[in-house]
Every structure is written in C-alpha cells, then in structure tokens.
C-alpha cells in the first residue's frame, strides 16, 4: 500500500475524502451541468453523461458563463453536486461558487497524476491531495 501526495494551493478551506471524477477539458457549470440531477450535459464533453454527486471534481479550469457560480451553489444545495474541487488554475467564477457552497477547493495541482475512480483525500487547509492506493 502506497499513497501519492500532491501539493497545491488552498483556495477554499475544508477536508473531504471521496472518489475522483477527472477531465482534462475545461468545464462550465452553467450549460454543462444539470443542477437538478448533477449530470454533465454538454455535448461532446469528456464527462458527458457522468454524475458529479459525491465525487471530488478534478478539471483544469472553468470556461464560459459567469452563471456558473450560482449553478455550482445550486447543484451542491440540491445534494447532487461534487464534494470538493481540484483545478490547475481556479477561475473566479468557480472560486466564488465554492466559497458560498462551502466546498473545499485547491488549485495549482498536477491533475495528470489523478485518474477517475481514484480515492482522494483532499485537505484544502493544507493545500494537499492524497491519492490513496
């Protein structure tokens, strides 16, 4: 048993352990995600058809609509949202959504080291991500 520790920068404090959902493509919460179901609906997106519920969402950065902040808050409040966020570069639209949704978030993480299905311990207080083997 060996774990891998990745370092990043704390964005929104908090600690959570969950399964990773990873994409190499930028994501917009508005227009890419159905806030009632938590499923990704953007056509042709790598995550189309995947559900965010209960997972730590790992994506490089956000794109598109600034409606994404309330959309992220709403999807979390509806109980079908992610439990944490890991980015390469956090976009202000996601940052403010994560602050109001009280969602632990880190950025400046080498996300190529994480695969969908990996068990993660996200410690946003310390700014670290542990990939549990």
């Amino acid at each position, binding site marked *: 048993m060996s774990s891998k520790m990745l370092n990043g920068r704390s964005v929104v404090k908090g600690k959570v352990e969950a399964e990773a959902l990873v994409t190499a493509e930028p994501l917009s919460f508005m227009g890419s995600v159905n806030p009632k179901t938590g499923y990704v*609906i953007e056509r042709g997106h790598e995550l189309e058809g995947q559900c965010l519920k209960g997972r730590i969402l790992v994506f490089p950065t956000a794109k598109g*609509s*600034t*409606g994404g902040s309330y*959309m992220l808050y709403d999807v979390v*409040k509806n109980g079908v949202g992610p439990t944490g966020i890991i980015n390469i570069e956090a*976009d*202000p639209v996601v940052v*403010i959504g994560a602050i109001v949704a009280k969602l632990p978030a880190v950025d400046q993480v080498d996300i190529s080291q994480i695969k969908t299905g990996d068990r993660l311990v996200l410690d946003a207080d310390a700014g670290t991500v542990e990939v549990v083997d």
Partner: protein
Amino acid sequence: MYLTDEEKQMLDGQAGELARQCMEILVTLGEINGAEKMLKIRSVHSPGVSYRVTGDAGLNYVVDASKLGTFRVPLTLNTIGIDADRWQQIGFPEEFSRKQLALLQAYAKMGAIPTCTCTPYLNGFAPLPGEHVAWGESSAIAYANSVLGARTNREGGPTALAAAVTGCVPAYGYHLAENRRADLCINVERNISSKRDFAVLGYYAGMTSGRRVPVFKGLPGCRSVENLKALSAAIATSGAVALFHIEGVTPDAVIGKADLKPKETVNFGETEYRQVTDKFNYQGDVDFVVIGCPHCSIGELQQLAALLEGKKVKADFWVCTSRMTKMLSDKMGFTEIIERAGARVVCDTCPVLCPTSSKGYKTILTNSAKLAHYAPGLWSVKTALIQTDQCISAALTGKWGGSK
C-alpha cells in the same frame, strides 16, 4: 491584505451584517489571489439573475441579502429567464415565472437597475477606458475589458452582489496592467466580415486561448459594435477569455500600454474556420430560429425588419433583445413588421437562460456561436451556426440545406 478604515469597519460588522458578509467574501477572494488592497468600482453588471441559473439556492441567497441592505454602486441586471411583461403570452411556465419575478423583486429592493440584458453597453451602461468595474456575463466582460478598455475580472453572481454592496473588489487579475498583456497572437489569414465570421473566429480563439489573453492581428472586415459583440460572446463561450486585443483597434492596443508581442502565434485560416463550422452544421427540417444572442442592437432589428417585411416564416422564430431596445423598435415600427411576419420579438431573456420549451424542438438555427454551443446541452437540439440572411431564408422555407 491592506484595508482602509472604511473597509475594516465593513469587515467588522459596523456597517451592518450584509456589508460584513460581502466584505468577508471579497477579502477571501483577495487573499486567494494575492491582492494587496481593494479597488473602488464605478459599476456592477450582475450575472446569475435568471432563475434557471440561480435555482432555489441562488434565489434564497439574494432574497436573504435583500432583507439586510442595499447597493451603494449602480448595479445593472443581466438577462433573466422570462420576458417579464409577456411571459404568459409567450407561454413561460407559471411556477418558473413566479420565482423569476420574486428574484427580480429582491434585486429591485436592493436598488438594482432592471436592464435585464447581456448588452448593457448598448443601452448607455458603458464604462470608460481604465475604469475599474465588477461585471458578470461572460460576453459583456469580454466586451467591457476588450472593446471598451474597462477593467474587470470574470465576476460570478455572489461577487457582483458583494461588490455592489461594498463598492469595491480586490485588486488582482485584469484590474492590474501586468495581467493585460497579450499571451498569444492570432494571425487572421481568412476574410472575416459577417457576424457569423466574427462568431466563428471568436469560438476558435476561445478554444485556443483557454484563460489566456489573445491579440488579433490582420483582422480585416467590418469591426462594428455588432461584430465585436458576436466575437466577445463566442470567445467567452469556448474559453474563459475575459480580455482580447485587436491590433490597431481596441483601447489597450491603441492608447494603452499593453504588451502585444507574445511569443506564441497561431494562424486562423480556412481550416480553422471549418473546424468550428463543422461542429454546428445541422441540415434538414427547421423548427426554431433564434437571432439575438447577445441581445440585438436597434441596427440589427432594423436589418431583420427589412429582411422579413411582407414575408411569412414557417419555423418558430425569436428575435431577442433588451427592453430598452425593444421600446425603440416599437417606436420605429420594426417590432410590428417582424411580428407580422410571424416572428416574435422577445425581450429580457434568451434560449440560453429561459426554461426549455415544451414544444419539443429538435433544431435551433442561429448566427450566434454562444447559442449554437449551449443549446445542444440545454435544449437537446441540433444546431447550425449560419449567416443572418441564411437564418431568415431557412425560417421562411422551413428547411436548411447547408452552406459553406
């Protein structure tokens, strides 16, 4: 970060609970981004005012805020989820509409200016070059930063609200000159003249740039307000671009001191053009045509009235605009001509932000890259991104046979 006495008082709660909550959010955002201080802002354009975007979570957030205080800086409202005057006539669902109106009322209580448009800059709300503002609506942000030379980050709904309550934002990102230099040069090799051309170029530039700041070189053709509006919307859809420069045209490039000599260059020619248009290339029967994403200018309404005069459309046809522009259009007779042809002038909203119709549309034809991108996921439709006159001819015949 450094705070003035007034800002400290807000953070301490001496200016009320709402100012305290808002300042706390802004300080958090500032600390994450290494801001040294706050900047006074002159205007706010708030995104996240469609109930489709806020859901109950966002609605309750704004209603709670409205019980505690008001805005101290002018705040205009972005596009909402219904036509506030004609929602029943157009057939927007009752429950959605009631919640949307409650959200509008909460904003009104705080002193918001109910512009309900993604194009406030077409209706007199246009910041000056170098002015610090807090704007949301991705297309309006790109336009304000790039075409007007104002300074804003990509603000989400809660930040816009906090900025209008406190009158400030943290000094980071596009507020600082060093972050406004070009990172990527896009060398335009193809003829670019129509609105669709600008939309296609913008969509490609957004895909290529991601979060970076591109500078366009060799951009020929008509650089009208409407074309730059189409470019701004597209570039902020496929990417998170908040600022672009056009050599010889935009304020940072002409009067500013932005460094426009990035190391990396990409070419935009016929191949790149096709890469975008191939993505949105539906052909066949047409049931819904939409012009006005972002909202139409009065000049665009005039053009549509001229194209539709004395004709009859077979497909459902929306022309989306702001309530201010619609008032002009009513006065000038364009609305009557457009609606006599069977199309509908819809204000305050658009298909990106209104509830999906129960009519079960299978297709949306549009000249907007933003709508062509979002509609497949939001409306479960196929889309075609085509020229304005092609949208009209497809609406008149009920069929679209494709184009180059």
